[in-house]
């Protein structure tokens, strides 16, 4: 019977090609617009590390100005840590894993005379960074704890840097000149792009992973520049790089891994105690207020999803609504036009349920075709987004399998919803009224 309904649906499609095409177009446009914006929002708000996002926490402590909160927001806390606090907390080793981290950059001077020096971005971190974030390695592995404490000049390369400096071969143990110093390569990571780049959203949450990784402790030795955001409420005590590092300026991110709620509670206790002890040293003039944010809380707090993207999504939903209202109207027109056929079917013994099924199948077919066409339009829309926003959205504008399913489901559900009323009306035609001539 289902096949019969499908056949009828296509016959009906052919009988009113323009009306049918209008409906398919309306659904396709609505789906295309919504799916384009949903995809962008979905990717912007994606969980970058789903298997352990609830065990990773970004730390916030309030070291800010006694007279003014960090910003106007009620429970605002500084969004980064001072170098001092981040290193202290990392060295305390009270979490399963922990790492202070920040972004920097330096010039790499390749050893062969043909290649030109180039500038590379650096993620300064502790060895736990790699285990904590499950960074995949191509060759070698992270440096060890000793390298952190002894400030050894070791480096982990990104796959691309390894390709441009060492031609992609296993470069473990090789020498590389960075910032005028000799470094030893201990590891090369495989392709690792987290989206969003949750561990440091200051430099754009959708930027690429850094090209080099090196021990955080080298920041001080090499006086590496700060490539991220630096925010001060009072100026450093004294001149020079060391004074800058030890100031109340915030420029460091701090992540810890806490496997369960108990560990989380314990860590917050530890954190509060740490701040209390710092208060005794005359720091942390504001009321005690510390916070642990898991990955998704942090993404929410830092408003990783662009407001424009959200706004466009809501507008596109309204757009879809208009398209559906349109479809309801057209379906109503189509089914009313078929009332004599329906009257006949009822007269020859079809039940209301039969007529209902027949027309819901017809509507679903229109929805499905519209949904598939809408997917095509989504691709066009995403291509448009790419060309409008430039390279940085490349990874934000691609359609994955789950989005395709979502698109088809939305198309089906919304078209069937749109078809309910017209179908109901069609079923309630009295068989007799339609058989007489007008």
């Amino acid at each position, binding site marked *: 019977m289902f096949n019969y309904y499908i056949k009828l649906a296509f016959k009906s499609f052919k009988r009113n090609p323009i009306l049918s095409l209008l409906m398919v177009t309306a659904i396709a446009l609505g789906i295309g617009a919504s799916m384009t914006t949903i995809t962008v929002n979905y990717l912007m708000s994606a969980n970058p590390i789903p298997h352990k996002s609830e065990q990773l926490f970004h730390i916030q402590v309030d070291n800010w100005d006694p007279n003014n909160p960090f910003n106007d927001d009620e429970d605002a806390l500084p969004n980064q840590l001072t170098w001092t606090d981040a290193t202290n907390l990392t060295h305390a080793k009270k979490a399963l894993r922990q790492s202070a981290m920040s972004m920097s950059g330096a010039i790499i001077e390749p050893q062969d005379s043909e290649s030109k020096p180039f500038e590379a971005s650096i993620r300064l971190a502790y060895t736990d960074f790699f285990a904590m974030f499950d960074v995949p390695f191509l060759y070698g592995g992270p440096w060890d704890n000793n390298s952190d404490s002894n400030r050894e000049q070791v480096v982990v390369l990104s796959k691309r840097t390894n390709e441009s400096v060492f031609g992609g071969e296993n470069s473990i143990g090789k020498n590389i000149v960075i910032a005028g110093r000799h470094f030893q390569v201990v590891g090369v990571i495989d392709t690792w792009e987290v989206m969003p780049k949750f561990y440091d959203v200051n430099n754009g949450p959708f930027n690429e992973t850094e090209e080099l990784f090196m021990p955080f402790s080298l920041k001080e030795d090499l006086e590496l520049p700060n490539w991220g955001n630096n925010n001060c409420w009072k100026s450093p005590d004294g001149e020079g790089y060391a004074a800058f590092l030890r100031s109340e300026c915030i420029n460091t991110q701090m992540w810890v891994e806490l496997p369960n709620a108990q560990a989380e509670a314990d860590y917050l206790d530890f954190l509060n105690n740490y701040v209390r002890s710092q208060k005794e040293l005359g720091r942390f003039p504001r009321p005690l207020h510390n916070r642990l944010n898991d990955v998704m809380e942090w993404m929410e707090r830092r408003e990783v999803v662009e407001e424009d993207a959200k706004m466009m999504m809501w507008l596109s939903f309204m757009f879809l609504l208009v398209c559906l209202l349109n479809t309801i109207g057209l379906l109503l027109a189509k089914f*009313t036009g078929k009332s004599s056929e329906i009257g006949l079917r009822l007269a020859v013994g079809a039940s209301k349920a039969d007529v209902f099924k027949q027309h819901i199948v017809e509507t679903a077919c229109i929805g499905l075709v519209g949904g598939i066409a809408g997917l095509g339009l989504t691709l066009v829309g995403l291509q448009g987004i790419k060309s409008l926003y430039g390279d940085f959205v490349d990874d934000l504008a691609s359609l994955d399998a789950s989005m395709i399913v979502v698109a088809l489901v939305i198309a089906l559900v919304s078209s069937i919803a749109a078809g309910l009323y017209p179908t109901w009306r069609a079923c309630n035609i009295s068989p007799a009224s339609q058989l007489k001539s007008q």
Partner: protein
Amino acid sequence: MKQSQPQTSTSWELGPILRAMLRNKVGAILIALQIAITMTIIVNSVYIIVERNKDMQRDSGIDNENSFYLTSVGFGDNFNVPNTVEEDLNMLRALPGVVDAIQTNAVPNSNSGWSMGLKTQSGVEHDAVGTAVYMVDDHGVNALDVEIIAGENFAPSDISLRIVGQVDWPNKTIITKAMAENLFPDINYADVVGKTVYINDIDPMVVVGIIDKLQAPWVNWSNVENVMLSPERQSFKGSRYFIRTEPGMRDTLMNQVEELLANSNNQRLIKGMRSIEETRERSYRGHTAMIKILTTVMVILTIVTALGIVGLASFSVNQRKKQIGTRRALGATQGTIIRYFMFENFLISSIGVLLGAILTVILNVILVNAFGLDRLDWFYIPIGMLVLWLVGQAAVFGPAKKAANIPPALATRTV
């Protein structure tokens, strides 16, 4: 026979049309809702577009068309920053076609830079006014193409050298008129010259000059015209040069300058060379994209709604063929039939745009609360209503014309 009144006074059939519409509510409601939501989206979109456009049209203060900048990063132990900067600037300023060149820590509209707070009274307890900081030498005013409207420029002897991690500030500054007015709202900007302001809560700086207009690096900052100039060169590993050229010389000079700087010293690399035009294009890319997307949405939406009206109206004409034939037989002219459908659509549209006006305001309030948009100007609403009315009338004209062409003889056909 009674004398008939002139045909021109044929009444609009308001009553019968309304009563007939009420018997077919659903179709009318669907169209009215479509019109209402379409109007809501269109009016709010147009408003967003206009606002974004206004932002983009604001004067940056600098010579957008003829300025560019680049960064020179030194490496190796023998790289002497102050000497290199001095040599570079002398070389750049001597180049034919260059109006002026400076070293600066940040570039207007580039979205990255320094900010500080200035106070009119010394002490942590007083409120500060946020400002962008451009560190420039005495050529700054000329290179940035700004005008000193009160006070005077920095003298060469005012220029100090800032080192990495330096905390204190020079004792002179030049600020924008907007900054002067934000700091001292009660006095004329010209009288701000000679006043002392405090940076880092307590370090005094004397305002020696006021410039007309200069934008901060951050285009979306609400105080984008709060800017101060600090008389400094910087001895950072990366030096940013900002160069203003004679009209039309920019592109030639960009190539020339990059090559000259790269060849003059093999212990550095040149990166990030970009014209201000391109920088502004990048900084406003979100705006441009939003404008284009909203425009596309508006056009498609209008087409969808119009097609919906055409579809339903055509259907309703088809349904009413017999009735139209009868009306023609009873004396309706073609004009009367067209007018009937146009007027019917006008009534439906009227309900739609009235509802649309309410929804528009509601959506605007939501956007204001959720996304910090400004309140909609009232006149957008009547314009939106008028436009949607016209769209409805245009869309229904085709089907109405078709209806008018239905022959009166249809009335005697037994179908």
